[in-house]
């Protein structure tokens, strides 16, 4: 069967259903249950309007229960052929999501959310390429092609300016292609100029090339868009070894670490509540230099007096010292820095250049949380200031900023979500033009309040029940989507739902990693960049 044949093929008729629970479709005898697949699209031709829906379950039925008790001899092909579709039949469970009215006015309006169900015995067809295009639109200056629906060649496109208005999440267990999807999305945002990105790149995968699971070299942003991406690094040596052309080496001074940064590290550094209290006290006493002063302090009578004065218990102090020693061992932390990384990042972002911060060998979660939180807090404060100024003085708003964080459940778990800047950004959403792109493999670890604020969720295969529940919380048709989600293939397939798509959609993600695929990403208009990039590609691949 060719691709065209599949689209528009008649499947059966509507026999029962409800808006809440979805619609039952009896398959025609010509359509085999074995050819169906959950996640596929169908159109239902009602009397007055067309409905657009997704197959969420497939089941078998018999016309007479006796058949199940005394099964016929199906080794006889004639018997099997006669009974298929008559006495025994397949049913589809379809979740209707959109409707397209029959009159001209509603055609202009485009697909609307469904508010009723089709009448009895309406014909159900597999959605054709045109239907899918009608719903998801085609590639243009706002829409980025992310993948194709199952068994179809149509492009599913995401409206990126719309997408970055909210925080978004990419979920999936490890090895399901989260990194590839993230790269794709980042490229999309870059290509469409929807937002500038700040990527906290824990495993150094987004800035410069890395290896895929098959061992293939995969290029990343800086190689594809050299003029639009800057790579910052914490691990200069590592980056140099990997021959990454870095733009800036990030060093953080002790004086830049504030007590709020320590709060987040409480769990990873194993600090007690009183120890955190002590940090605030020390900071009040020593100001910006609290960390330096605490580290320098020797076990002396003077220290004891000081502790007594501030009524900090000896053991609390010990606990704090142990935690601080861990931080001190991070080589990118220095007593004093000549340059300010926040300022540099903002400079780049202001020019519309995306910043990828590589962590190199500091993949330790302490370093990640500390740096990501520290930088984001200051950048967010700056953005907030600018936004308020822009509103007050009626000047152009700052360019939307998307901050990408990995291992999000470490920042956004219920205990920390209220304290970290990431929790605030997720909740405040677009007010200050800063949103998050959250990447995580344990969505159940993320605070439900934050989860509910995530606009568009892109999820690869998840098989833990709690993770699935937390991703699907609050979505209509949850149980139906659940069965779709748990049956995704382990690679290159993702379920997208939420703000930026008109209805939940399962996509086979666009190819990424081959020389041809890189060419597709390059903007057609800017020929010089394109030529340069094409040259780069050839050099790298030949």
């Amino acid at each position, binding site marked *: 069967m060719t691709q065209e044949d599949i689209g528009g093929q008649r499947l059966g008729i509507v026999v029962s259903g409800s808006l809440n629970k979805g619609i039952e479709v009896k398959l025609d005898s010509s359509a085999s249950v074995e050819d169906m697949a959950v996640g596929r699209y169908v159109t239902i031709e009602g009397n007055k309007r067309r409905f657009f829906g997704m197959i969420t379950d497939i089941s078998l039925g018999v016309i007479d229960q006796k058949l199940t008790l005394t099964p016929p001899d199906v080794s006889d092909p004639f018997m099997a052929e*006669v009974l298929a579709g008559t006495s025994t039949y397949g049913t589809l469970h379809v979740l209707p999501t959109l409707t397209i009215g029959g009159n001209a006015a509603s055609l202009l309006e485009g697909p609307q959310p469904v508010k009723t169900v089709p009448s009895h015995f309406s014909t159900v067809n597999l959605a054709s390429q045109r239907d899918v295009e009608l719903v998801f639109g085609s590639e243009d200056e706002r829409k980025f092609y992310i993948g194709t629906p199952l068994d179809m060649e149509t492009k599913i496109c995401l409206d990126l300016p719309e997408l970055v208005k909210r925080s978004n999440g990419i979920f999936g267990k490890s090895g399901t292609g989260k990194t590839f999807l993230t790269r794709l999305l980042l490229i999309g945002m870059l290509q469409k100029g929807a937002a500038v990105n700040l990527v906290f790149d824990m495993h150094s995968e987004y800035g410069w090339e890395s290896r895929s699971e098959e061992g293939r070299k995969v290029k990343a942003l800086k190689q594809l868009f050299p003029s639009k991406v800057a790579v910052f690094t914490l691990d200069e040596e590592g980056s140099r070894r990997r021959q990454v052309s870095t733009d800036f080496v990030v060093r953080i001074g002790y004086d830049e670490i504030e007590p709020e940064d320590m709060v987040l590290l409480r769990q990873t550094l194993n600090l007690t509540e009183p120890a955190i209290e002590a940090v605030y006290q020390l900071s009040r006493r020593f100001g910006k230099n609290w960390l330096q002063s605490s580290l320098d302090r020797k076990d002396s009578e003077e220290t004891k007096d000081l502790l007594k004065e501030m009524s900090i218990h000896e053991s609390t102090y010990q606990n704090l010292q142990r935690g601080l020693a861990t931080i001190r061992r991070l080589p990118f932390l220095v007593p004093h820095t000549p340059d300010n990384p926040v300022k540099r990042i903002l400079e780049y972002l202001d020019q519309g250049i995306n910043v990828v911060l590589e962590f190199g060998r500091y993949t330790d979660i302490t370093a990640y949380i500390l740096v990501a939180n520290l930088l984001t807090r200051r950048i967010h404060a700056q953005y907030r200031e600018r936004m308020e100024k822009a509103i007050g003085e009626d000047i152009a708003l700052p360019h939307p900023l998307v901050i990408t964080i990995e291992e999000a459940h470490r920042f956004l778990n219920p205990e920390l979500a209220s304290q970290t800047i990431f929790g605030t950004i997720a909740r405040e959403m677009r007010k200050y033009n800063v949103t998050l792109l959250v990447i995580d493999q344990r969505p159940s670890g993320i605070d439900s309040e934050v989860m509910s604020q995530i606009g568009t969720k892109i999820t690869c295969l998840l098989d833990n029940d709690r993770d699935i529940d937390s991703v699907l919380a609050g979505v209509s048709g949850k149980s139906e989507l659940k069965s779709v989600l748990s049956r995704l293939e382990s690679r290159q397939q993702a379920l997208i739902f939420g703000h930026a798509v008109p209805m939940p959609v399962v996509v086979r993600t666009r190819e990424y990693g081959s020389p041809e695929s890189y060419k597709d990403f390059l903007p057609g208009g800017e020929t010089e960049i394109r030529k340069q990039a094409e040259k780069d590609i050839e050099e790298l691949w030949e």
Partner: protein
Amino acid sequence: MERVGEVIEASTTDFVAQCYELYQSPPLGSLVKTTDLPVELYGIVYNATTTSLEPGRRPIARGKDEASEEEIYKSSPQLLQLLRSEFSTLVVGYRENEKLYRYLPPKPARIHGFVHLCPPGEVKEFSQSLDFLNILINTHLPVPADELIAACLRQMSQVYEDPHDFLVAAGKELAILLSSDFNQLKAILGRIKQ
């Protein structure tokens, strides 16, 4: 068109025809028609009998001294005149003004109407729709309905280039009609499979 007999008894639901030749009744389940202008009636042969002309006089065994069965008829040629073959037909549809209806006609057949065996083209035309199966299922006849339906479908399938497709389509129709009686369906399907 092969003439097979003449109507000698008729009612709304069926008619009985006598064969011109002894033992020359059409096969069980075959489609026959009789004309009562402007209406043509279609029927399906469901029973055939050969009896003595006079109801009270039963034939007696005669072959004791004969070498073969043929010899009996040869030595007593009057036998062919004393016996008769008849067949009963269930009315399943009619044609009026070129249009084919697969349900009972307004009037029964005429006595002495000639009965013809339908040629393949006409059988094909009639069996385009399988609505008549409902009549076969719901009529009480001296022969079991399963047997009649199976015989009829077997007969009809022979006029198709691909009898299998026709039988599958008919089987599906039966599966819907007999949805509450799987055993009967199974019995019929067992009799029509090739």
